């Protein structure tokens, strides 16, 4: 049975609460947005418009309802795409016995890892004008090296277990070993990494949109709203503050949620031995030998779960 701290549940609930509002707005907002209505004067407060109007006189609340979808969907697509490339690369390089193939797969990624991610995105944006799909592809690309390395490390550990050797000797197919055993063993690491990665991807997608990459200059997008309505910050702060707060809540909540979801399980902690006042002289040797002695070898096999 796995046990978690009470505080872990509490943190999970906190993350869920923080992320719920922006996520609901992002996914359900467009359904309730309705008709945009006629354009009014730029940067006004009150009147018919609950949150005022933006830099071209559109209703801010309407824009807020529409603006979350691109951020969330682009981030989700980019994360999924990154793993679509990273996981096969990692599994092949973890299971191959041809060292050259592994080098060929993993070394180029090390080079890509050296380039700051935002820089790579701006570099491409200086030549192309990537749309939302292009931005998702780019963000996925900059995330592949790191994701592949982490999955490779987890899969490599699983691939070195005696169970894999046993499966090979039984004549199981490569797919069965790679997906059924090694991939499954790496799943927890992968899930934890996906949470962290999604947070990073959300950061990157919204920052790129703020800098004008992958979005139209007047797009209904929270990050674009923050950028374009900054000029009217003195007159009409809501057009900036509301989308900025939503982005803060979205990223913060996602991070809190995934951190709580993959918090390490509670291991009953052994209390440290009391230190006698008199110093080491009075310390008795502890019954410590058995802890250092070799463990029975069956552990590795059982650890991987049911044999496929």
């Amino acid at each position, binding site marked *: 049975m796995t046990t978690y701290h009470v*505080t872990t549940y509490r943190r999970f609930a906190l993350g869920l609460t923080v992320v719920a509002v922006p996520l609901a707005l992002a996914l359900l907002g467009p359904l309730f947005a309705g008709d945009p209505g006629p354009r009014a004067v730029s940067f006004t407060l009150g009147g018919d418009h609950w949150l005022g109007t933006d830099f071209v006189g559109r209703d801010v609340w309407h824009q807020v309802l529409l603006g979350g979808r691109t951020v969330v969907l682009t981030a989700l697509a980019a994360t999924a795409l990154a793993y679509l490339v990273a996981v096969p690369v990692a599994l092949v390089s973890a299971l191959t016995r041809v060292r050259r193939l592994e080098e060929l797969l993993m070394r180029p990624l090390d080079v890509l890892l050296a380039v*700051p991610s935002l820089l790579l995105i701006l*570099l491409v944006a200086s030549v192309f*004008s990537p749309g939302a799909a292009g931005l998702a592809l780019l963000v996925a690309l900059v995330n592949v090296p790191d994701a592949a390395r982490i999955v490779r490390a987890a899969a490599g550990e699983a691939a070195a277990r005696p169970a894999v050797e046993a499966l090979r000797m039984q004549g199981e197919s490569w797919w069965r070993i790679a997906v059924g055993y090694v991939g499954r063993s790496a799943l927890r690491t992968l899930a934890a990494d996906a949470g962290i990665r999604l947070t990073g991807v959300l950061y990157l997608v919204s920052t790129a949109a703020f800098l004008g990459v992958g979005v139209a200059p007047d797009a209904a997008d929270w990050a674009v709203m923050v950028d374009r309505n900054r000029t009217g910050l*003195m007159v009409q702060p809501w057009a900036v503050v509301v989308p900025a707060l939503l982005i803060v809540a979205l990223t913060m909540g996602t991070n809190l949620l995934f951190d709580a979801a993959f918090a390490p399980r509670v291991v009953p902690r052994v209390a440290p031995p009391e230190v006698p006042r008199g110093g080491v002289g009075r310390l008795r040797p502890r019954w410590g030998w058995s802890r250092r002695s070799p463990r029975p070898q069956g552990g590795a096999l059982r650890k991987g779960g049911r044999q496929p």
Partner: protein
Amino acid sequence: MTTQLGGNAPKGRGAVSICGSAAGRDQPRRRSTRTTAYAPFVTRRLLLGGAQTVGVVLLVFALTEALPGDAAVALAGDQPDPARIAAIREAMDLDRPAYERLADWATGLLHGDFGTSLASGRPVTQYITDAFGPTLLLATLTLALLVPLGFGLGVLAARHEGRLVDRLVSSVTLAVYAVPEFALGVLLVTVLALKLAWLPPTAVGYGTDLLGHPAALVLPVLVLLSRPVCSLSRLVRAGMIDALASPYAAHARRYGVPGARVRYAHALPNALAPAAQQLARTVDWLLCGVIVVEALFVIPGLGTVLLNAVAERDVPVVQGLAVVFGVLTVLLNLGADLVAHRLTPRAGVAA
């Protein structure tokens, strides 16, 4: 997995090499094995660094010039007028094969010649030297505050593990860690600069003389610090908790070594290795953060130059800045890996 390895390391030579030269002198054989094991690692890491530098240069070139299709048409973008396309083609020598242009450009880079801007005809190096000051100032200030703040918070939290201070520091750092700079910056500007009028909202009007107006620097540095401080302090906290729970820390306590000495002289150096690496990754973030912060606070630094060049599709300037940023990142990561390996030789720091 690195932490597991790192957790093993301090028991042995990593701790010895830092915590006291006396222990090192007692074990001359061990020392010599370490130094011989260090050399191949350095060679390998330097080779990788060299490959990464070459890779960055190739990647920058490939992404901006060796595109499928006609680069001149793509660059002309919104104004596909034939005269402009021809001008771009001539300015960038697009009629010559890509490998020749790459060779010319790369040899130019070696001599410090980054080419000339398409938009203004000024040399790219001039752009870089003009804008270098503000960015360097921002980065230096941020780093100077980042190290004491990050380590201080991390040690503070680790010292009070599980208590209120720790929970407060941990949850705040966890929450702020993920927030994009622009959103946080805009909110801070709204509250601190516009509502309370404590600080100027942007650096407009100060030009490159930012040091003369320290008030204008407070918000940019604060925003730049937000993410790196969180990641660094979380890592230091985790490393310190591991190190303080380790047998050698317990042993030092049994000998009656004072708590502060155990924390700072014995445990902290071992929590340092992952933190040193994170510090380099952080500088990578700083480069990204600087772009956003300069755009947000209208500071005329390298980030602003890069964004303007991207908007104008001024490829030589973008290339030059990308190479500068990329090579800087490679060098910093190289330095951090070497330092981290020096601190925990057994951990086999991933290159």
